């Protein structure tokens, strides 16, 4: 039933795409099409939720399209259903946001058809049950999102971002193709059911795991394959950025979970170590990048890199525990990973919507030119604050719940027998703690500079609030963040069938715990109660605010004494984003980014201003991509000669190759 309807929904999305091409592009039709996308998403969302909550058995079907005699095999099980939940909630919110936001797009017909195909592609990836269908729908997802990235193609930067994205997507798909080639074996069983039941040799399975990590990591944004993400995600229209950053990265995570946890069988112990190390490095590096970024949307994209790293740390931990048969610990780590994936889709979509609202209201993405938006865009400022709190993992919001679960999992690492893991996991836990703290600082910076203080430019002072639908979508996501934050037990229980499918066990049932506590392993060890924390925070805040108002504010008089040192000063005298990041830059930047600060003081008596120039290098770009670029450049420069040979030389080349091949045949037997 669920699978059947999901197929029809995907078909309906395809029709929306076709309709969007042929229909006239008046604001009304665009609204209608986005509303249709929202409605379809909500149907799939309801189906997936029903599948998860009733713990329905897996459903399969086979469509007579695709490869001849094989067709397209589809299947929906707990893992698919959980990720369908993430994708379609994000899709619903983005469509709702776009009903208001998408109308003002300069050429909506460049966005709308691909938007619908993008949603359809992501949904199809989740229910694909053979390698061919999976790859085809994966490509649908990649290419339609590429088209969305270059939808504003007049901007050179966007085209360049699209080019980098296309390269990385092609690379990822190629790696994925190799994974399925390895898994299919010599007989070429491309169905997932055959791959699942086959026993894979350990070396082959290890190679497939590494390739799967590369393939899905390049889509999700694992370092060092993350370079396209901060270029491409901000280039798309904001509701698409939210989908790409909040949702498409989750589809990539789904791909990793499907291949490594479901198809490959029992993991080897080093798999966990590799995934943990890359996840930890990604998390820290991502947030460090975000810390120094001036562009609001690009900063959010870097923060996505960080959160993907966090999710992969959870998955690596689950692999490490699964190898050693520590079922309940693996269930805890895996639940934390998928819970964080869900949370990230909620608050990252919310923050991108907020950034889109800021962009719409001010026309500016550079946070150094914003400021004081809390006065002109009070509602956006409120929801953006909520998103910042959630992504900074502050209780009682959802980011805290999932990261807390993850740290509970890390605390179980002394029970792992391998010394490599025993030593690595606490170190990665420390990296993760560092990343969490830096993420907090990063969003304090973003919020403080963009929304507080005084406007730093004309466009910031003339900002206006966005339309009703956009605000509705943001409030919906904020409500979801709060709900999953104060009632994490519900999500953990909903994820139980997923955990069973992936690691064989699940966390203890949370709804039956007293007082809506959540309990990772046993109540005697540790427990957390979001509702109680929320009540406590609310209570103390109210008491504190009232006390301050009663004993302090009433007695306060506004008087321009020294006026904090700058009466009527220019807004440029405010604390800037760069000043905020400077201390952290001095600690980490010199080693990671090789930052150099140069102070340029005018001569005494000169009238020009002093300058502080900060130069940074991207270590990953320099170490890997610049070298690849150089090598390709060198080789193509050398081979360029081949374009200008005479006809006889070309013939001789063909002849020489033929002779060489014949010689090889005659020597090699």
């Amino acid at each position, binding site marked *: 039933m669920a699978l059947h309807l999901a197929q029809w929904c995907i078909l309906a999305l395809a029709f929306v795409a076709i309709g969007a091409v042929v229909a006239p592009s008046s604001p009304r039709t665009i609204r209608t099409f986005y509303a249709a996308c929202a409605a379809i998403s909500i149907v799939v969302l309801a189906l997936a939720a029903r599948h998860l909550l009733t713990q329905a058995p897996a459903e399969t079907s086979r469509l007579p399209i695709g490869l001849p005699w094989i067709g397209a095999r589809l299947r929906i099980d707990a893992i698919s259903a959980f990720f369908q939940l993430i994708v379609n909630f994000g899709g619903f919110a983005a469509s709702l946001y776009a009903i208001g936001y998408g109308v003002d797009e300069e050429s909506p017909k460049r966005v709308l058809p691909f938007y619908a195909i993008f949603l359809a592609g992501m949904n199809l990836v989740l229910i694909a049950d053979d390698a061919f269908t999976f790859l085809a729908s994966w490509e649908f997802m990649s290419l339609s999102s590429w088209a969305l990235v270059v939808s504003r193609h007049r901007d050179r930067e966007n085209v360049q971002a699209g080019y980098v994205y296309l390269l990385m997507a092609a690379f990822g798909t190629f790696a994925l193709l190799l994974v399925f080639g390895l898994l299919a074996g010599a007989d070429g069983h491309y169905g997932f059911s055959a791959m699942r039941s086959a026993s894979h040799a350990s070396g082959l399975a290890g190679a497939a795991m590494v390739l799967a990590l590369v393939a899905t990591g390049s889509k999700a944004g694992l370092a060092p394959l993350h370079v396209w993400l901060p270029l491409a995600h901000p280039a798309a229209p904001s509701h698409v950025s939210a989908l790409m950053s909040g949702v498409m990265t989750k589809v990539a995570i789904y791909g990793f979970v499907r291949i490594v946890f479901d198809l490959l069988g029992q993991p080897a112990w080093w798999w966990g170590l590799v995934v943990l190390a890359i996840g930890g490095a990604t998390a820290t590096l991502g947030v460090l990048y975000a810390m120094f970024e001036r562009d609001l949307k690009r900063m959010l994209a870097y923060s996505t890199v960080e959160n993907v790293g966090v999710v992969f740390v959870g998955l690596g931990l689950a692999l490490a525990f699964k190898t050693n048969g520590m079922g309940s610990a693996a269930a805890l780590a895996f639940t934390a990973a998928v819970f964080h994936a869900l949370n990230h889709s909620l608050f990252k979509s919310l923050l991108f919507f907020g950034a889109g609202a800021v962009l719409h209201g001010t026309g500016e993405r550079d946070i150094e030119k914003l400021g004081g938006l809390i006065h002109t865009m009070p509602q956006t400022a409120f929801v953006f604050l909520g998103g910042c709190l959630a992504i900074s993992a502050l209780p009682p919001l959802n980011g805290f719940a999932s990261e807390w679960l993850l740290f509970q999992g890390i605390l179980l690492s002394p029970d792992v027998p391998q010394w490599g893991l025993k030593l690595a996991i606490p170190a990665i836990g420390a990296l993760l703690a560092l990343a969490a703290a830096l993420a907090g600082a990063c969003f304090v910076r973003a919020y403080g500079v963009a929304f507080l203080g005084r406007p730093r430019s004309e466009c910031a002072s003339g900002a206006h609030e966005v339309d009703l639908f956009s605000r509705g979508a943001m409030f919906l996501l904020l409500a979801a963040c709060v709900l999953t934050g104060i009632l994490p037990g519900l999500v953990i229980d909903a994820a139980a069938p997923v955990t069973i499918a992936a690691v064989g066990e699940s966390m203890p049932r949370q709804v039956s715990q007293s007082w809506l506590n959540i309990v990772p392993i046993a109540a005697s060890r540790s427990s957390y109660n979001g509702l109680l924390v929320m009540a406590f925070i609310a209570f103390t805040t109210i008491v504190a605010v009232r006390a301050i108002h009663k004993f302090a504010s009433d007695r306060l008089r506004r008087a321009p004494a020294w006026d904090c040192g700058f009466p009527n000063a220019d807004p440029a005298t405010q604390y800037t984003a760069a000043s905020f990041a400077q201390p952290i830059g001095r600690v980490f930047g010199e080693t990671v980014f090789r930052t150099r600060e140069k102070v340029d003081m005018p001569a005494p008596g000169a009238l020009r201003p002093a300058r502080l120039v900060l130069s940074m290098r991207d270590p990953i770009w320099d170490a890997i991509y610049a070298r690849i670029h150089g090598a390709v450049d060198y080789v193509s420069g050398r081979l360029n000669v081949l374009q200008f040979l005479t006809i006889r030389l070309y013939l001789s080349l063909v002849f020489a190759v033929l*002779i060489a091949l014949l010689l090889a045949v005659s020597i090699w037997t």
Partner: protein
Amino acid sequence: MVQFSLDFAHLLAGGLVLISFMLLYQDRMFGLLNVFALHAVVLSLSVSWQAYVQDAPHLYITAAIALGLKAILIPIALHRVVVRLGIHREIETVGGIGLTMLAGMGLVALSMVVMLRVTGAADPLAREDLAFALSVILLGLLMMVTRRNAVSQIIGFMSLENGLILAATGAKGMPLVVEISVAFSVLVALIVIGVFLFRIRERFDSVDIEALDEVRGDRS
């Protein structure tokens, strides 16, 4: 009888290889064309012998096509082309006959080694036939590489194609359709190349293909 048919097939195929060698050192146009006509005659003999031995009457048609087209029609056409282009008195400089012949011998040895090793399980008639055919193909290629005149390159290409037909008829059961389509493609190639020859000639007053390279604008 079996031994005799095998020997005779080998004789004809070996003759084809020998004539390919003769093609290599011809430095006059008319001589080249005459030797090529001989090449085609021997090919058609070889194919009809195969038709007789394999008891495959459709191969007679192949032989007839080879005789009609390659031994008569194409040489006559090229003859007239050469006369009209006025290059029948030209002596083509073939760089180092001795060296070319040595390279040709190396190619024949190579094709023997390759074919006899690879086709160990095949029918002996087809086996050595294939080795000879590969030699003819390689010698045709060698001729294309060493010659500078466009007409001699055409001849090289056609002798290469003769090798292909020899290979195909040696193996049993090549459909007639394939042969006819190959023959047609060669004919079309001849017409196209002929037209091009005159165009090249009009432009550059020469059919030496080096002349083409000199006027190419994109040379670095």
